[in-house]
């Protein structure tokens, strides 16, 4: 466990300058079996201390790869000097940040460490199941991965705390060929989530149905056809609508992106979606249970609470740091987070989701005359304009209300605040995922979720 060598350094904070001192350890474990070869067998541990100091509208930051009181003093001094340097050269002349409540958050989850052998044996069990049951696959890759952040945070005027965010996931990649010898692949983050290795990876047999499902989909895709390009009616599966919540809407309503010219700037308090759409960035607890990746406290010392972003189709708020919250006259809600000890806090999502509606998925599919049901996606990106794209890796034609042939990889796109207005059916259950990293200068584990949505998007195809 990360020791406390920073609390006593609070006395060294400079008066009148908001100061954060953070000790942090990150761990990563990764095992990859590619075509039966152990290509990755790695353990990474990085730890250190950082300080950030705010002076008149600018920040100074410093970090050191050392966990000691002396290192804490060094980074406090360097961060303060950097803040003074910037203030001297830039001179924004702003005052200190508005005060927030103070308190203390206790450790929410102890991080335990499974030996590398456990990861390797687990991956080998899954690999052997695949080889025995599906010998005709041309290749397969299994990755078992875990990462964790443990932080101690002390601030001059907010909460202090000791928090941890461990998670682990299994990723499966299966490859086959069409009759013409063209390679086709499909992957999924099979299972896992918040917690330590032993919380998720006790019994490989639990993952076998996920492998079977993935194989079945791959066989459909092997016979798949190219999607037809153009504007289409689609049913986005829950995984894709979670991605939509994160990429297409979430990023545009991060307050730093708003300041950079995002389309959400002039859209506040205006209709951006049909009234079936409500979207929330949950901190740690959702109406349906614990959030996939609970965040109790951010790295600015703000206790985390839910951020309602869209309510009944109206854009109601942004996600903020303490500084942007002051700028927009909003309340900071604990979104400023850093990935590594050497990273500064940035505005990040936590567990972003579209709330479920009342429709049944089967009714939604039955209602489409000619369109697509899209179930899996590889990656996604969004723009300041709200224009988004997702690389879809699995989906099916819908013809006359019935699922038809599988489709090959394609990309869908749209403009979020236009596309969301076309949402006319919302399913009654949410699919969550927590296996991804969000990239925004730094990486960050995030949760995302959503119900199935019937809407109009552009489909890329031949």
């Amino acid at each position, binding site marked *: 466990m990360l020791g406390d060598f920073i609390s006593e350094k609070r006395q060294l904070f400079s008066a009148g300058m908001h100061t954060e001192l953070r000790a942090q350890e990150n761990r990563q474990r990764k095992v990859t079996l*590619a*075509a039966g*070869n*152990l290509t*990755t*067998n*790695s*353990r990474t*541990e*990085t*730890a250190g201390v950082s300080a950030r100091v705010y002076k008149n509208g*600018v*920040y*100074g*930051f*410093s*970090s*050191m*790869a050392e*966990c000691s009181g002396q290192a804490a003093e060094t980074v406090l001094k360097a961060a303060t000097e*950097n803040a003074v*340097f*910037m203030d001297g050269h830039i001179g*924004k002349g702003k005052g200190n940040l508005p005060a927030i409540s103070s308190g203390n958050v206790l450790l929410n989850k102890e991080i335990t460490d499974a030996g590398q*052998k456990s990861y390797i*044996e687990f991956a080998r069990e899954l690999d052997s199941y695949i080889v025995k049951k599906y010998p005709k696959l041309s*290749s397969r*890759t299994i990755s078992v991965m875990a990462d964790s952040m443990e932080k101690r945070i002390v601030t001059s005027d907010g909460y202090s705390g000791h928090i941890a965010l461990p998670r682990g996931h299994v990723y499966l990649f299966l*490859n086959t060929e069409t009759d013409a010898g*063209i*390679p*086709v*692949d499909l992957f999924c983050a099979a299972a896992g989530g918040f917690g330590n290795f032993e919380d998720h990876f006790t019994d490989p047999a639990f993952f076998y149905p996920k492998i079977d499902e993935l194989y079945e989909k791959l066989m459909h895709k092997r016979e798949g056809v190219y999607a037809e*390009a153009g*504007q289409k009616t689609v049913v986005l599966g829950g995984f894709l609508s979670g991605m939509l919540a994160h990429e297409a809407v979430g990023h545009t309503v991060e307050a730093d*992106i708003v*300041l*950079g*010219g*995002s*389309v959400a700037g002039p859209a506040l308090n205006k209709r951006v979606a049909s009234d079936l759409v409500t979207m929330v960035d949950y901190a740690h607890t959702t109406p349906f249970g614990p959030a996939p990746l609970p965040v109790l406290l951010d790295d600015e010392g703000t206790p985390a609470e839910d951020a309602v972003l869209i309510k009944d189709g109206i854009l109601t708020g942004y996600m903020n740091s303490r500084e942007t919250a002051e700028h927009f006259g909003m309340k900071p809600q604990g979104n400023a987070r850093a990935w590594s000890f*050497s990273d*500064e806090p940035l505005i990040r999502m936590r567990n972003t989701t579209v709330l479920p509606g009342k429709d049944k998925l089967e009714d939604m599919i039955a209602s489409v005359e000619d369109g697509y049901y899209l179930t899996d996606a*590889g*990656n996604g*990106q969004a*723009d*300041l*304009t709200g*224009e988004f*794209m997702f*690389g879809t890796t699995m989906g099916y034609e819908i013809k006359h209300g019935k699922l038809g042939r599988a489709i090959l*990889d*394609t*990309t869908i*796109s749209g403009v979020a605040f236009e596309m969301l207005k076309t949402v006319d059916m919302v399913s009654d259950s949410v699919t969550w995922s927590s296996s991804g990293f969000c990239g925004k*200068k730094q990486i960050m584990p995030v949760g995302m979720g959503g119900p199935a949505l019937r809407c109009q998007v552009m489909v*890329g*195809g*031949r």
Partner: protein
Amino acid sequence: MENIQIVADRTEEILKEKDVQMAYFTVSSSEMREFNVEGGEFSLFRTLYDSDLNITVYKDQKKGVVTINRLEEPAIREAVENGLKSAESGIADPDHGIAPKQEKKVFRQGVYEPDIERFFARSQELMEDVKEQFPKILIHSIVLSHTKYHSVYRNTNGTEFETYSGAYSVSLGFAGHEGEQTTSLCGSEFKTESLEKPFISLGSLKKDLEDAQAQLGPVSLSGKLDGVLILTPQCLSELLYGVISNFVSDHAVLEKTSIWMDKLGKKVADERLTISAAPLDERILCGQRYTQEGFLAENYDVIKNGVLQSFMLSLYVANKTGFERAKNTSYAIVIEGGDMSYEEMIRNVKSGMIVGGFSGGQPSVNGDFSGVAKNGFLIEDGNIKGAVTEVMISGNLSELLNHLVGISKETVADGDKVLPYMAFTDVVIAGK
């Protein structure tokens, strides 16, 4: 901070003490200074002191890798022991290996000690230049950094490489902005070892800013457009990454998913195309000097005059598959300029589009790609007709390389790669 030569000695002693027969490790220390601009204003100055020890050990041909950033003796000992435990849990593989002993080398690259006051002055000047010369540009973010890096690499065959390197790095995110109208987020980045020239004149920054401003007031494209696609160097880089990852990388060859598995020595692209991996090229800043296995890096051609010359393989995958290992394992891609100017290239297009960025899904294993064409301009009868938005492009990467129309004389060198503009046909360009 620990002296990294002493840390290297300590690590080597522990490896010997544990009777490790095959291993390599890198100890590094770095100092980074970084200025950040957010929402058009300077917001942050960072100073980072970092260190790193990455050890790869083999026991009975089983491999384990450990990375830590604590360099004191007990931490190193624990790391070696964890590496050995990981290896013991692994799978014996005769194809693991490291390079034979190489002569000791010290590499000095770029500018090791930064001039922070001058760097900051250039950064402020950049902000002013953008404001004055590009009034319709809204700066979203700028990250300006200098990293001073010192490392020692050793392996159990007695090789030692020591590196001192440093470079200034500038990365901008910006958009055209007027009233409530905003263009797509555009990016531009470059590395430099010199502070002699204003930053706005480096890389492709000025052109990228011009293009972003010209993106204001785009029109939508209706239906499909049958024509030529001109890719900017930035967009080309994104698609080339797909070519490398899908067709010539370690995983594509190891898993035999590459559609070029049997194409070595055969034509895979237009004969005018040569793609080199060239970290020693003088236009590449702080390029790779040695591989992880301990081989000195050399430049080589992946494709020469349209013929596949080499996969980009590590020693392990080379041993595993029987192909030759790559002479370096970097992504320092160089494509030399062609025989027509960028202007001529546009003039020759009857119908088509310039694409400045590609926002798409990972290309399929067979090379099929589709995605949103970002920062696009329509071309009609040899003239740029204006900005266009909400256009999707799709095609196949392998087919694309065989449908080359031309390569521009002009190239953009951003310190990491050197690429020209390139024009292709056989891509589906689809609007709403």
